[in-house]
């Protein structure tokens, strides 16, 4: 089973990296790029757990360790 966890800055928090990437994409001839938010991606391999337990554990890990709830939010996808 694989858990994919996406951590990004909250919409309300300024993302200067994302803005810089957006400016670069715009200047490369892509004015259609209206906004870029960047973040972190974790791929976690799990063994010996059922999906429900995995979801609960991953949510806790994402909340406690992988993200900083003060500035970041996360999304989890579990497959396999």
């Amino acid at each position: 089973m694989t858990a994919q966890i996406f951590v990004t800055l909250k919409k309300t928090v300024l993302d200067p990296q994302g803005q810089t990437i957006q400016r670069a994409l715009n200047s490369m001839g892509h004015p259609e790029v209206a906004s870029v938010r960047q973040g972190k991606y974790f791929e976690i391999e799990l063994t010996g757990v059922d999906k429900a337990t995995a979801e609960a554990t991953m949510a806790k890990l994402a909340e406690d360790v992988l993200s900083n709830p003060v500035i970041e939010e996360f999304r989890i996808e579990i497959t396999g």
Partner: protein
Amino acid sequence: MKFGVVVFPGSNCDHDAWYAASANLGHQAEFLWHSDSSLKSSDCVILPGGFSYGDYLRCGAIAKFSPVMASVKKFAAEGGYVMGICNGFQILTECGLLPGALVRNRGLKFICKEVLLTAATANSPYTCAIPTGAELRIPIAHGEGCYVADDATLDMLEADDRVAFRYVENPNGSLRDIAGVLNEGRNVMGMMPHPERATEPLMGSSDGRMVFESLIQSYASQLSAAK
């Protein structure tokens, strides 16, 4: 007064803090290893600058799980002095001892330079010896030193007089020019600038001594009050 300087894997201003407290201020200082829970009866714990655990998850994010931090939290709850400098400030926000967070500098680059700071309050053990309005010349050296918090938190910090230091010229985009903040009990303080790097003329400034001298003075009056 005895300073305990925590050493995490990747701390690299640990020796500087130790040297400032012992050689330049003339007080006792000892290193505290991250996996030990003993604080060796320190009167003030310093979480030094550096890149604890490589800052690989987020700055300061992994250090908060080390055994020494459990003791530091307990020590802080009992009113002990805890000062986080740079990476130490990041650790204090990560572990919830201080509000807010530190994110990438607005210009996205690491910045190392001397900046001017003012103490935003005299009502703290870290600023009480700093003359009102004095501009302190103290270096910064960080890539993620932009202080952020939501408006309610910022309003609360200001209402409670818990902003310890402000930048005279904001180098990194910190909200409301905040360079350092206090916890509710005013015994825990985190700041991005490095006072330990400005404690002797050879380093180009001695203004950082005032932060240490404030602490030493507060500690002394606390002791005499206890007697």
